[in-house]
């Protein structure tokens, strides 16, 4: 008794509270998204998605209990096995998976459909934590960098084969973990430069950017002086590459398949492909934008309810929230997510072992990427890549996967003193 009392006081109830608030809000929004005024059904009705989601939530609670009562050492010990298991599943998926929307990303087991890519995320986070467990794992050295990137990249390769670019992109979030653990700045500077130049290349006249780059180089040259030949050559080289990159963007974009081109171009001009990709973004923005400050009221939305927004209960669930609860609703949900993420960073930082900390940051990275990219794509800040909003979107695979992801960390956190004791 005494032991379990101690244990329950060590659990971070704040995080669990935030989790259930988000799950609850998601659930009522799923009901709003599928609600039909002309034949209203109960939110518990199993013939509509809100009823099914409640089943998923119930089973997720079971999973939570299982995780919390399991031995805390289990996850660390199983991490590599789980990773191998899911990578193998991912390899098999394209061959035995069920084809939905041109993707073979789903496994069918009886009436249930599971998406291995969702579960591979927490397995990868565990494996990465295991890999970096030792203090000798120094990310400033190329050898270790390659190993870390290898662990992250392996599932990506197979997810791309399904092909599911959205889920694959999620894995780039692990670079947040690597950043925390000492990955050198230069990679991030490089990545951000490539991204910014890429966006500029689409938005701004290329020659203008080229002039800007050359001017910056000359400015740096002026301050550095001519003393250092090596630096001068590097600078010229980098400047040249950047100019070349900018000019190549248009060419590369033109070479992409048309529907990928449109997904990018639609960010800058919603009138591109107004009935295809543009339709989603335009209608999604209309739904959210029409919510105003306080929203149209629960179940009073018209845009999501009447099918103007596609995928309204899954990837575009945020539209329902924005339309019916307005900016206030958006504010509450975004604040909950930010609070959760900041809390998780706090928890990760208080871990006594590197394994727990790395896993904690893995959770933060994946949740943040999903949260930020999902909402960004509904408001037209990011291409539509079809990833769910954690805890919110309809779907068993994603709810289970995010629940497992989060609660393994809550479990690890609640045992942080014992873990330390074990090590010492």
């Amino acid at each position, binding site marked *: 008794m005494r032991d379990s009392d101690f244990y329950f006081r060590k659990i971070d109830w704040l995080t669990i509270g935030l989790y259930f608030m988000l799950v609850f809000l998601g659930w009522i929004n799923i009901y709003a998204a599928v609600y039909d*005024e*002309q034949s209203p059904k109960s939110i518990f009705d199993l013939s509509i998605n809100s009823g099914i989601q409640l089943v998923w939530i119930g089973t997720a609670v079971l999973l939570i209990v299982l995780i919390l009562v399991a031995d805390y050492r289990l996850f660390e010990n199983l991490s590599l096995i789980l990773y191998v298991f899911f990578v193998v599943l991912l390899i098999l998926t394209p061959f035995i998976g069920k084809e939905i929307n041109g993707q073979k990303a789903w496994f069918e087991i009886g009436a249930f459909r599971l998406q291995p890519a969702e579960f591979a995320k927490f397995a990868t986070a565990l494996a990465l934590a295991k890999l970096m467990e030792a203090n000798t794992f120094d990310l400033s050295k190329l050898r270790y960098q390659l190993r870390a990137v290898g662990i992250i990249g392996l599932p990506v390769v197979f997810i791309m084969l399904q092909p599911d670019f959205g889920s694959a992109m999620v894995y780039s979030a692990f670079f*947040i973990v690597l*950043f*925390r653990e*000492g990955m050198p700045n230069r990679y991030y500077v490089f990545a951000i430069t490539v991204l910014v130049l890429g966006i500029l290349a689409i938005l701004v006249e290329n020659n203008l950017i080229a002039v800007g780059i050359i001017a910056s180089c000359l400015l740096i040259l002026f301050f550095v002086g001519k003393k250092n030949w090596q630096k001068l050559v590097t600078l010229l080289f980098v400047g040249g590459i950047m100019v070349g990159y900018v000019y190549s963007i248009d060419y590369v974009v033109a070479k992409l398949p048309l529907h990928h081109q449109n997904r990018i171009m639609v960010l800058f001009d919603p009138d591109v492909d*107004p*009935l295809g990709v543009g339709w989603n973004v335009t*209608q999604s*923005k*209309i*739904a*959210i*934008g*029409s*919510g*105003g*400050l306080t929203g149209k009221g629960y179940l009073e939305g*018209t*845009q999501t*309810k*009447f*099918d*103007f927004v596609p995928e309204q209960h899954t990837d575009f669930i945020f539209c329902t929230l*924005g*339309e019916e609860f*307005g*900016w206030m609703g*958006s*504010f509450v949900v*975004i*604040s909950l*997510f*930010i609070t959760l*993420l*900041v809390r998780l*960073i706090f928890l*990760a*930082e208080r871990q006594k072992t590197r394994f727990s900390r790395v896993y904690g*940051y893995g959770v*933060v990275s994946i949740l*943040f990427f999903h949260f*930020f990219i999902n*909402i*960004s794509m509904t*408001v037209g*800040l990011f291409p539509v890549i079809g990833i769910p909003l954690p805890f919110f979107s309809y779907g068993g695979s994603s709810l289970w996967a995010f629940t497992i992801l989060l609660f393994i960390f809550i479990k690890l956190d609640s045992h942080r003193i014992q873990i330390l004791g074990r090590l010492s």
Partner: protein
Amino acid sequence: MESNRPLIITFAIILLGVILLLKLFLIQVTDDSYLRKAERNAIQRIVDHPYRGLVYDRNGKLLVYNNPVFDIMVIPREFTVEDTASFCEFFNIKKETLIENFNAAKNYSWVKPSPLIKQISNEEFARIQDYLIDYRGIFVMTRSVRSYPQPSAANALGYIGEISANQLGRDETSYYRQGDYVGLSGVEAYYEPDLRGRKGVNYRMVNVRGVDKGKFKNGDLDTVSVAGQNIQSTLDLELQQYGEKLLAGKRGSVVAIEPKTGEILSFISAPTYDPNQLTGSKFGQNFLELNQDENKPLFNRPIMAMYPPGSIFKIVQSLVGLQEGILTPNTTFSCNRSLVNCHNHPNPVNLFGAIRNSCNPYYHQAFRMMINQEVSSNTFRDTQIGLDKWRESVMKFGLGDRLGVDMHGEKSGSIPSSKLYDQIYGNGRWKYSTIYSLSIGQGEMLVTPLQMANLAAIFANKGYYYIPHMIKAIDGDATRIPEKFRTKRDTGIDPAHFDMVQEAMVEALSGTAARAIISDIVIAGKTGTAQNPSGEDHSVFIAFAPKDDPKIAIAVYVENAGWGGRAAASTASLMIEKYLRGEITRPALEDYVLEGNFIY
């Protein structure tokens, strides 16, 4: 490992979260265009067009009713056609029209219905009805167009058409919307507010496929339509049709008025057209053709054509002279042809003889006495004063200004004032010898056929009139017609003066218009000839009958038909008989009029 990287990550996450909130604030709170777009998406404003009021003649015969037509509506997002050519052939429209209409629909909305093919007739609809389900994204909406059981009284009834941008701008009540139909002329235009009823609006919610999803806000914003009110016009359909038959193949006007009430019994503008031409999908094309027709069928002659009144005006001159005390029944002048031309008749004549024989020199001399009363020693000044005084009296006969009939576009005619002659000749540079043509209804004097018919009514009524009008009752209620049509207007002429004038008009017929005489109906009339500088003179005749209890006053103009005694008097006589007796006893006269063809 001490590092600031956890802080950097924390701040980056918070910063990106704030960026999301800012972006959301921009589209949700500061920009309300999304709200409008959402409403355009999902809320359909369905206008419930009321039934337009019907129009009946004075005996309750139907003149105007509504006929259903069908619009093919399209929802652009749903609409697909595999074979455009066969689609166009099936619906009997041009490919360019289809593309044009479809583009307009797309521009309006991708998900809400717009008209694709307008006003398909009942017969057409029966043909295509069963095949409509073969096409996705189109459905049928029923509307109604005006229809006329008898192709009669086109210019009097007027027509309806799509409201113009100009009219929309002038609509202060904001009742009308683009594409609404309004009365554009005749009774349709004048009684538009009564006939149109009130539109109802239903707000429905539709989903992305255009499927109805129920009332918006439980129908709180919806309004019910109110049907337009039926109108009874003063026209006598039978008389109208008979008059149109008589004037077929001629240019001219016939206006018949019930003198005691000012009710217009027939209102004929020839050549006319079938009012059914200006309804439905053929409106545009037919309107263009009618508008370009050199005989101007759309020109509403009874109120828009202006002619010099000619000899008929001599009766007005006589009455004004009598009232002023300048003339008496015994005033006698010689028929001095050196003053103005005349024709053979007994000489000299008193006033009765002057009317009866239409003696020009008589009125030349009588008019001089009315104008130059030697109020001023200056001849020029004296003429000015005299003319304006005379004009004032003449205008009381409803001349020189719009009568105010219930039709738009009425012309005022012209009774010249001293100001007009000052403008033409200069102040003090004109005198009686300049203006003497006015004495016999010529010169700078213009009247409309309606004003002429009204003169006949005044002579019949011995001095008063009601503004001629087309309305007898609104929604079955005679008291709802405008007040001005129920107000008696007085000419200021003593009724006693009319006895002799009426006698002379009866007598005049045997002299100048013997054809018009009916053995058992006493007609008082006066012929006239409106001089026409560009061709044969216009034939004019006014009359009322029976003389002792006038039931009908009539004015007939037949353009280019020469002397008034011929075509015009015969037509008037037949109309009077038709109205009073209900049948024609003189088929020979009828044939004579029917055969006349004065359009050249």
